[in-house]
């Protein structure tokens, strides 16, 4: 089944690079916890949340405490979320780790995004 093998080879190296998304909607505030790694394979999961579930949300908190790493694909989704929330409320990033902060810094997104550290 070389055909299927080839299909899989086209995909990302899967392994343990998984992303867990926990959502908690309280009234107009949505609290999203991201655990794991965000890359081209896992970012679309968050992308679905951004596209479909932000209706009526006034404040979005992205808890990045346990997000180990984000690739540019992840940044793209965070930017998309930022744009949606910029129109209908605001968005906060909570406790990004050093690796994530570096990327946010590198890409200049640090200048636009509201980052809160509570520990």
């Amino acid at each position: 089944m070389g055909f299927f093998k080839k299909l899989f080879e086209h995909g990302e190296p899967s392994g343990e690079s998984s992303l867990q998304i926990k959502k908690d909607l309280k009234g107009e505030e949505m609290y999203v916890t991201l655990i794991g790694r965000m890359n081209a394979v896992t970012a679309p999961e968050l992308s679905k949340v951004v596209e479909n579930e932000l209706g009526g949300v006034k404040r979005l908190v992205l808890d990045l405490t346990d997000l180990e790493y984000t690739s540019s694909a992840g940044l793209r989704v965070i930017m998309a979320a930022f744009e949606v929330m910029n129109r209908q409320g605001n968005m906060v990033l909570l406790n990004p780790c050093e690796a994530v902060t570096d990327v946010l810094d590198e890409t200049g997104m640090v200048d636009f995004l509201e980052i809160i550290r509570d520990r």
Partner: protein
Amino acid sequence: MDDRSVKKLHLGLRMTGLILCVSVFLSSAAIWIGTRIFVNKNNEAYKMQARSVAGSVGLIADEDRFRDMVSLVRNIYEDAPSDIRDADASMGGEVAYSYDEGEYPSLFKEAQDRIYTETINKLNYLCEESAAADIFIWFPDYERHRMVFVMFAAAEKYQSEIEPPGFWTEIYEEDEEYTLSPDTQGYYASYEREDEVTGQTVTYVQCILPLYPDDNAVEEGSAFVTVDIEWKDVHEQTLEYLRHFLIAVVILTLILVGLSQLILRYSMVGPLKKVIAEEERVATELSLGSDIQKSALPESVMCHFGSGDRVAVYGSMKPAKETGGDFFDYYLIDEDHLVLLIADVSDKGVPAALFMMMSKIFIDCFATQHLEPGEALMRANDAIFARNKEQMFVTVWLGVLELSTGILRAANAGHEKPVIRRAGGEFEIYVDVHGFIAGRLKNMKYKTYEIMLGAGDTLFLFTDGLTEAMNTEENMLGAEGMLGALNSLPEDTDPETVCLHMESAVRQFSNGAPQSDDLTMLCVRIEKEN
């Protein structure tokens, strides 16, 4: 023969093998069961035939006549000299001939009257007509364990088997003949005997019945009929049946194999071929796309610029898939100004490649207008932003090196910071003025900064495919890993060697883990004083 046709062949072969196995198994089972049924049915039929022949023997002559004939033979037998009668019957063969050959048979001449001869003739005729091999009437001598023949008739073919009246053959208490009674539906046996003439094994079915329904074996004066029927051509018939059956099985199997191949071809191989063709088309297009993308970038050859070729430049791009989102370039916009460009689109594969081509054209368009790099990036950002529905973005580092002076003016749109090694020093990350990623927001400002590059200085630019290269344990090479690998090189290493060394460092670090992101590097070295 490529891999796929081998697979296809295997599938066809396996299917054929399976059908052959199944048909061999089924036909063995069918032959076994069929033969059993055939033999059993034949046996049954011959038994019935033997029984009906045996049952009709009593009708050939009057009962009293038969009884007279039987008792006459019995009387002669019993009155015969005891040295003959009591002779050891076990010597040589079934019938003991331990008497003077002329004398004993002649004792029975008296019994062989006209009626006896007529009856024998009738029985011979019955044998011929009923296909029985032989018919004989006998009475038991329990004392000496014998069946003593009264009349022996046989079909013409079996006339040699005939025994004269008064001759006997042994029977034993365990034989069923011994207890044959009117309640018994008859005694049946089938046995095999070698034909004396042809030497072939012939199967017989035997039926023994009391001559008259009221007779009982243990009673005085009882007589019995034995009928032997040869299984005529039964082996021949079985073989013929098997031959026909096997031919039918072979034909059916061939039809099945042919059908399965057809089904395989039309229901599986056909669609599979389409999928494969489609896959090949996509692969061809991807490889064409990859070639087009590569041709949009400089070839990986070291180039020299400036008076006396004082500036050496080398760049390389290795996409993770066929096409990538990274790009780099370097080109002169006038005699003294060399544009240096490296960028990374926020995705991989075909979408990234398309976005990359668009971004590169916009950036090149403004970079060639002799604008400050910051200004060029600002305009390129707005241009890309206006045509970016998919919300992608690109990180860009754009620099313009003045070859005569070594002044590098650059701007950074969210790209990795450059790495610089000053002559005599180590590779270090140069913390530059950072702007926002390009293509996502309108009216972004990008500051132009200036770096003075002197003889012996090396500038190294890269994309995150380098620092975020992963090994099998999902650890990343990181900035430290990158700087460590860079600083292991001697100071006067040329740009090409730097890039090739870093490629092998990434390979070594990944330790077989697949490349997850495009890997792009651009290295510039001022080799001599102006």
